[in-house]
C-alpha cells in the first residue's frame, strides 16, 4: 500500500507559537492517527480520526491540540501555543483500507518539532 507523506520533516519554533504539521494519506482510507515520540522514548498515541471526526484522544491531546482534514486528503495536527515539552517526533499513521482492527498501521517518516 502507498506510503504516508508528512511535512515538514523538521520544524523549529519559539515557545508559544502555533505549529501545523501535515500528513497526506490516501483519501479513501477512513482511520487516521497522530502519535508522538519524545527522543529516546516510546511512541505515544495522541488522537484517532475516523470518518472526519475525532474518535479517541489521549490525555496528552489537550486543548492546545486540534486535528483537521480540511480538503478530504490532507490531515493536519495543530498545536496552538507550543511548549518546550512539545518537542518530539510526530507521526501520522493510517489504517489498512479494510480497517485497522489487526493493529497494522502505516506510519509516515515523522515531523520533528523542536520548541526553543
Amino acid at each position: 500500500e502507498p506510503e504516508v507523506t508528512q511535512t515538514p520533516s523538521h520544524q523549529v519554533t519559539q515557545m508559544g507559537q502555533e505549529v501545523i504539521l501535515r500528513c497526506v494519506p490516501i483519501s479513501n482510507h477512513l482511520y487516521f492517527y497522530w502519535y508522538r515520540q519524545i527522543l529516546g522514548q516510546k511512541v505515544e498515541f495522541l488522537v484517532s480520526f475516523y470518518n472526519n471526526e475525532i474518535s479517541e484522544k489521549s490525555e496528552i491531546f489537550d486543548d492546545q491540540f486540534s486535528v483537521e482534514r480540511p480538503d478530504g486528503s490532507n490531515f493536519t495536527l495543530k498545536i496552538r501555543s507550543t511548549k518546550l515539552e512539545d518537542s518530539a517526533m510526530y507521526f501520522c499513521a493510517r489504517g489498512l483500507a479494510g480497517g485497522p482492527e489487526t493493529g497494522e498501521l502505516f506510519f509516515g517518516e515523522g515531523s520533528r518539532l523542536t520548541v526553543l
Partner: protein
Amino acid sequence: GESVGLHLPTLSVQEGDNSIINCAYSNSASDYFIWYKQESGKGPQFIIDIRSNMDKRQGQRVTVLLNKTVKHLSLQIAATQPGDSAVYFCAENTGSSYKLIFGSGTRLLVRP
C-alpha cells in the same frame, strides 16, 4: 490500566544467530498484539501481529509467541542480519478506534 512494557532495553546478537525480544502486557482485553520495527530516523514499521486467540504465528524469518497465562509476548528473529538492527516495539490495539499502545522498545544490535 493499559500497560505494555519490555524486559530488556538493548539486545546484542551475532549475525546469523537467532534473536528473541520479549514484552509483557497488562491489558487482557486487547484483540491483537503487534510488533513494530523502527529504524533510526524513520517511523515504526509493522512486522507481524497475532490475534489474542492464537499462541503462535510465523512470518518470514519472524515468529511471534503469545502466552496469555503470564501475559507475555515475544518476537523471534531467525538468522539475524545487519538490516535487523533497529528498535523493536511491542504494541496492542485497543479501544473503539483500534489505537495502538506501545511498549518502551528494545534496541537490537547485530554484530558482524
